């Protein structure tokens, strides 16, 4: 029984989102909301806001990734690899923000059953990981190719063209194709997210095991040091940046290309100018060759449609190219040295290892290390392929659905499609297909959909101004679910911070605390990046402040002194890249982007997780 006198957050069933958000519930499917019929079970759980995957209000269609991970992550823990005392992670939406809870442990006999299955299935994965990874990548690329091949007809035509009727009739119309294509893409994204978790739960579990092992031997070892020990140097997430470096070197010495890329004009104009010269065309060919997959990189986390990707916001990679070329001209080295990174990692591991006194311990340490190294690379590799590559394809396709719905006035603007959830979009498509099929003079309910979209847009705007409560319900006394601990960093301390953090006026803060994600100290002017487009304003030597940094921002990291984020733990996508670049970083401060202003002089200590505002810009 939960201790009723203990500190707790409001009961989710009593909690009300602000009234400006009225009507938010209808945007999301009913199973994703708190309800009286499940109240007893819901009250037993601890719900905290998932700032990693849903730091911003959720557009109904972007919610599809959340739904997909809930099923996949949980299923792998409970039914596939059967981590004995752990169950899944459940989600609820409150006021457009997502709250998640690790599900209470199963009955003892289930733990027993699962332990047997775990013992049988998991060793197999570790013994065969490299082979399994190759297979995984093959299968996953096929999903992406299938998704890319989905046809989204943009013009339904007044009449079906002849060649679909004779000599070999196709048998179905483009209007039907639209309906089918949407179903297909939904199926594919859900399947892709199944693959996403195929080895991730085990990778996280192995990591946590290694942290425990290292801590037993070296009680004071930093999690950032452990991060360095397990990090892979050659992982997919760094390839996009490596390709940019390569393209920059390719441009060097090709006068016109080098000069054009250095210009301060939009990427689209640069592309046109490059087309006009021979050298430019050769360079463009090379660009085309690597675009898929290496430019399929979200400009943000990959979780929100409005973040865009390098493909839709070419200005982003082109601004990186410009800065790389300028640095090459100065004689700087722009590439990360893979050998240096792996040598440093091996040195750290070897020196710690030497400190171990007992032979038994050294053997156990070696074995634990080899175990985590076998599989941890999945935690780094999957990220590029799922959140970046595949999501980029998804968003390209969904944009096409948005366009055709707009063309036939079902929607006023293509991006309105994201205001409808995945169960509603088929209604819009069916409405269009039906109206088209019924013949001349028929109407869709475009006006109804568009009014709904406008209203929802307002609710989401109001939601983004609301500072959502960090958690709901009663904090648990123990947690077995690996992601809860590792990814969201739920610990005694974080729960405590949330409990008191709710009433602090952030404007008065001069010191923030977050995770010591990447060691080192940096002091300098802050640059708050709310949108990635602001990247062009970034000056060398500034300290980057963002809601979350992202590996796709990697090229920025060669220009800054350090990074501070609102969201993310030690193994969050942000921390990994900072460590790789040897930049001090503090992640998961919760409030950095609202407390720190561009121009403030700040000091960050990536070894202690403390960020200090040394001097206010306007003070």
């Amino acid at each position, binding site marked *: 029984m939960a201790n009723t006198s203990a500190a707790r957050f409001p009961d989710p069933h009593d909690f009300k989102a602000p009234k400006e958000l009225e009507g938010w519930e209808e945007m999301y499917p009913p199973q994703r909301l708190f309800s009286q019929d499940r109240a007893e079970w819901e009250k037993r759980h601890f719900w905290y806001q998932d700032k990693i995957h849903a730091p911003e209000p959720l557009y109904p269609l972007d919610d599809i990734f959340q739904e997909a991970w809930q099923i996949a992550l949980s299923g792998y823990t409970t039914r596939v690899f059967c981590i004995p005392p752990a169950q899944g992670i459940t989600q609820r939406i409150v006021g457009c923000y997502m709250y998640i809870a690790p599900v209470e442990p199963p009955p003892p006999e289930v733990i027993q059953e699962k332990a047997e299955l775990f013992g049988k299935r998991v060793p197999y994965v570790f013994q065969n990981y490299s082979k399994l990874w190759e297979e995984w990548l093959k299968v996953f690329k096929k999903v992406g190719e299938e998704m890319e091949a989905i046809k989204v007809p943009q013009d339904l035509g007044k009449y079906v063209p002849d060649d679909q009727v004779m000599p070999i009739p196709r048998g179905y119309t483009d209007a039907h194709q639209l309906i089918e294509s949407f179903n297909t893409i939904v199926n594919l994204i859900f399947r892709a997210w199944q693959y996403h978790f195929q080895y991730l739960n085990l990778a996280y579990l192995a990591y*946590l095991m290694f942290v425990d092992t290292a801590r037993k031997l*070296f009680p004071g070892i*930093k999690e950032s040091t452990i991060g360095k020990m397990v990090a892979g140097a050659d992982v997919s997430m760094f390839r996009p940046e490596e390709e940019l470096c390569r393209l920059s070197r390719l441009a060097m010495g090709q006068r016109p290309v080098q000069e054009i890329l250095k210009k301060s004009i939009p990427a689209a104009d640069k592309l046109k100018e490059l087309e006009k010269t021979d050298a430019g065309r050769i360079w463009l060919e090379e660009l085309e060759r690597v675009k898929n997959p290496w430019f399929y990189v979200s400009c943000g986390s990959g979780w929100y449609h409005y973040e865009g990707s390098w493909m839709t916001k070419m200005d982003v990679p082109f601004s990186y190219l410009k800065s790389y070329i300028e640095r090459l001209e100065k004689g700087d080295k722009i590439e990360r040295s893979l050998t240096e990174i792996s040598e440093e990692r091996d040195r750290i591991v070897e020196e710690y290892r030497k*400190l171990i006194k007992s032979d038994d311990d050294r053997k*156990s340490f070696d074995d634990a290390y080899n175990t*985590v190294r076998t599989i941890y690379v999945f935690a780094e590799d999957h990220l590029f392929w799922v959140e970046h590559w595949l999501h980029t394809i998804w968003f390209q396709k969904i944009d096409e659905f948005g366009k055709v719905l707009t063309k036939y006035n079902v929607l006023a603007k293509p991006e309105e499609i994201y205001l409808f959830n995945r169960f509603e979009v088929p209604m819009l498509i069916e409405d269009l297909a039906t109206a088209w099929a019924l013949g001349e003079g028929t109407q869709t309910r475009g006006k109804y959909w568009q009014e709904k979209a406008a209203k929802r847009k307002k609710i989401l705007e109001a939601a983004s101004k609301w500072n959502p409560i960090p958690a709901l319900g009663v904090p648990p006394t123990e947690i077995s679910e690996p992601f809860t601990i590792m990814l969201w960093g739920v610990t005694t301390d974080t729960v405590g911070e949330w409990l008191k953090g709710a009433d602090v006026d952030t404007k008065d803060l001069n010191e923030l605390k977050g995770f010591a994600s990447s060691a080192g100290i940096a002091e300098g002017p802050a640059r708050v990046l709310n949108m990635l487009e602001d990247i062009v304003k970034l000056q060398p030597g500034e300290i980057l402040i963002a809601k979350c940094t992202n590996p796709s921002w990697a090229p920025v990291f060669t220009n800054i002194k350090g990074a501070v984020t609102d969201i993310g733990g030690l193994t969050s996508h942000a921390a990994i890249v900072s460590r790789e670049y040897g930049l001090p970083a503090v992640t998961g401060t919760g409030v950095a982007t609202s407390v720190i202003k561009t121009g403030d002089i700040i000091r960050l200590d990536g070894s202690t997780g403390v960020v200090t505002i040394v001097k206010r810009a306007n003070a």
Partner: protein
Amino acid sequence: MAEKWIYWLRELGTEHNDIVGKKCANLGELTKAGFHVPPGFALSVKAYDRFMKETEVTDRLLQFLKTFKADANNVADTMKFEEASQEMRKIVESIRMPADMEETVKNHYSELCKAAGRENVFVATRSAGPVSHPGQYETYLNVCGSDDVVRNVIRVWSSTFNTRSVIARARLGLPLNYDPIGVAVLTMVDAKAAGVMFTVNPVNGDESKVAIEASFGFGEAVVSGNVTPDRYLVDKITYEIDEKVISDKGAEFAYNPATKEMEYKELPPEKRKLACLEEREITELTKIAKKVESHFGCPQDIEYSISGSMAFPESIFLVQARPESVWGKKKKESVLGKKTGWQLLFEKATTPVKLKTS
């Protein structure tokens, strides 16, 4: 030729422990191994022995002790010991060294001066017992001039007659008139900061850390516990500073040229809470600590001094190294047990993490 009783530090090693005392032997070992130790020499227990036996000291002490009656286990007799100690020290300090000894000590001192390129170099005369009795005997700092060096060597010998040493011997039934120790005569480092470091985290025995304590001025401030030092915990492998506590250090232990004494001098308010070590000094100290530990093969307790007049890194001197006494002695037992990666993983998977939430 009489038995050798005076040594340059570089002639010594840990094997000379019983001859010159632990402190001298260790400093010699460090010097030989190439560590930066202030130049100096050591007088062995034989020197003490000669002084006691070749002068009238022993006779006079025995004469005095004939009438001395007190019970070391009776607290009420403490005053009697105190008075006796004063009397005996007066006797010891009133007697000159045998002439040849005096000359030899002075020659050694003038060698030190020559090496330092100064006429009268400041030295410290430090006691060095063959068995470690931290703080039992006395040390005199900022000794200057050959007569003063000789006088202070005798003062160190005389500290074997301080009250607590006499009581300690009385309790053990040892002769009260004789307790041979070594003496180190070391060039003083004009310390801007100094302190102690352990090559193990003294709190939890974590051997991947070096714990450094530091304060302004001479190291006695830290060793004696008279000031609250700055504290750093540094990772031996990544050289990251994991913990840093800058304390209000209040005062520094420094030489007062007016009184020619070492004194605690109040620090100006703006200096009290300043860090007394630079980051590069912390890193360098950590590297040195690692080397000392690997030279001796066990966790070390190291005293260091940073010169205010010399350039980094030559400014850093070691003035003492000895085995760390708590964790160093613990037998290293396995903390993990003999486990495979799979066993560890299974354990992790089946053990929930406790949260303290109430």
